[in-house]
């Protein structure tokens, strides 16, 4: 049994410890925000955070994550009380098919928690591992910028 801390809750997972986190999130815990895009760390659709660091959940086995707080999009807020990142993405309507978006949000979340004053160039560089096929990039950048404002206490 592997004990994981996900979105503030402790869960016991009965799975092969070599199983990458993504499969546990989706198949065992019903947390479907993180997506399977490639399973190879090439697209970033699976991005979540562990201890505040953005990771490819398709590549990190759960045995490596015991005792480290994992956060997914579902942990950023609720439909009734969305967190700043979710609020910003809704305001900017930053999604077309939406497949890349949770990964984008979590990578941006990791960046802004570490570097609240990240410049535009730093945001672009940080999001480089996350691919978007629909071309939503400009809206995503606007959303991250807005999230920055909201996280600083803006309205």
């Amino acid at each position, binding site marked *: 049994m592997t004990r994981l801390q996900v979105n503030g809750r402790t869960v016991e997972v009965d799975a092969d410890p*070599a199983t990458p986190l993504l499969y546990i999130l989706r198949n065992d815990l019903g947390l479907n925000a993180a997506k399977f895009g490639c399973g190879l760390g090439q697209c970033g659709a699976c991005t979540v955070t562990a201890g505040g660091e953005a*990771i490819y959940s398709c590549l*990190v*086995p759960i045995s*490596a994550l015991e005792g480290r707080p994992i956060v997914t999009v579902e942990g950023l807020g609720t439909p009734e009380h969305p967190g700043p990142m979710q609020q910003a993405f809704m305001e900017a309507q930053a999604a077309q098919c939406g497949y890349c978006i949770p990964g984008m949000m979590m990578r941006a979340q990791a960046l802004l928690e570490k570097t609240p004053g990240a410049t535009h160039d730093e945001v672009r560089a940080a999001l480089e*591992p996350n691919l978007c096929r629909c071309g939503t990039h400009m809206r995503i950048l606007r959303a991250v910028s807005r999230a920055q404002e909201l996280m600083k206490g803006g309205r």
Partner: protein
Amino acid sequence: MQSASDTGSRSFSTAQIERGANLAAIGNCATCHTAHGGRPFAGGYPLKTPFGTVHGTNITPDRETGIGSWSLADFTRALREGMSPEGHHYYPAFPYAYFTHLADDDIGALYAFVMTREPVRATVPANSVLVPRLAVAVWNAKYLHRGALASDASHDADWNHGHYLAESLAHCSECHTPRDKLGGEKRGEYLSGGEAGGWEAPALNEHSPSPVPWTLPAMDQYLRTGLVDRHAISAGPMRGVVENLSHALPADVNALARYIVSMERKGPDTANAARSTPSARGEQLYAGACGDCHDRGRIAEGGALPLKEAIAVALPTPKNLIHIVQEGITPHEDGAQPWMPAFRGSFTDKDLAELLAYTRSLGGKAAWNDVQAQVQATRKEGEEK
């Protein structure tokens, strides 16, 4: 328009400029003279040395901030003596100790090339080197050996050409030969390995750690593409080298490859002690994080370098592998290739050390020492940037 200098009017033939472009690619000028995200040759690239950080200068033909006012004589002096037109010394991080061997017409071609680049107005950050420039004169007395390279009659013209390219331009030895406390090359240990920018530059001679002995086709392919199926991928400082060599004349790269391969006289592998034992946890981490790409074979979609014979796994220290795992390997901006993802943040230091120890056990060499300490040291180095 630049005014006439003591070389007469500045007009260069296309052939000369193209020749200069080829030489600049072999010399890898662009990497040290271009900042990350900066304009080509406009300087600002920080080169960390044991003596402090030196920034590559602006060598575009801008008259105020670049070298636009330089004559051919000024340029020649910089390359051959490491002196600026104003008479002060460049730090030997600028490899003039190699360029000093360049033939006159090659220097002329390089001059034609740099003087026809786009002028960029850009000042370069201050260096943080504590050694006074005058001390470089002392260093030069000991380490700067001026004059042409001696040709080796026991080898053919092509080998000698490769030797010339390696020692006067590509400056492989700058990183791949150990240096003494003054930062000068230990000539007696030529190509026995060294370091560059926090990465290990493997030995290229009889001490080569490569599990697969280099052949000419493999080395040629590596230098032009950075990728050899069985055992090698270019990463760290070699990425810039390979990126530039991919634009050089194939015949020149082949001559360079031939010279380097001739240095790897494979002696008995005394470093091959008992293979280290894999740990269960390391195996499990590998299965979850690495196996899917690294075990499926290169040809298959998404396939990555099989690790059993990979050079990074066979090096004396895990330093390069730590960089590769933490930072990933990203293709160049215009390149569309699969990349090694960055695993920074994915593992605790202890787990990463287990994982690296496991990958080491896949190759045929004895265990690395203090892997966890090296993981921490590498991270600290990175934070100091």
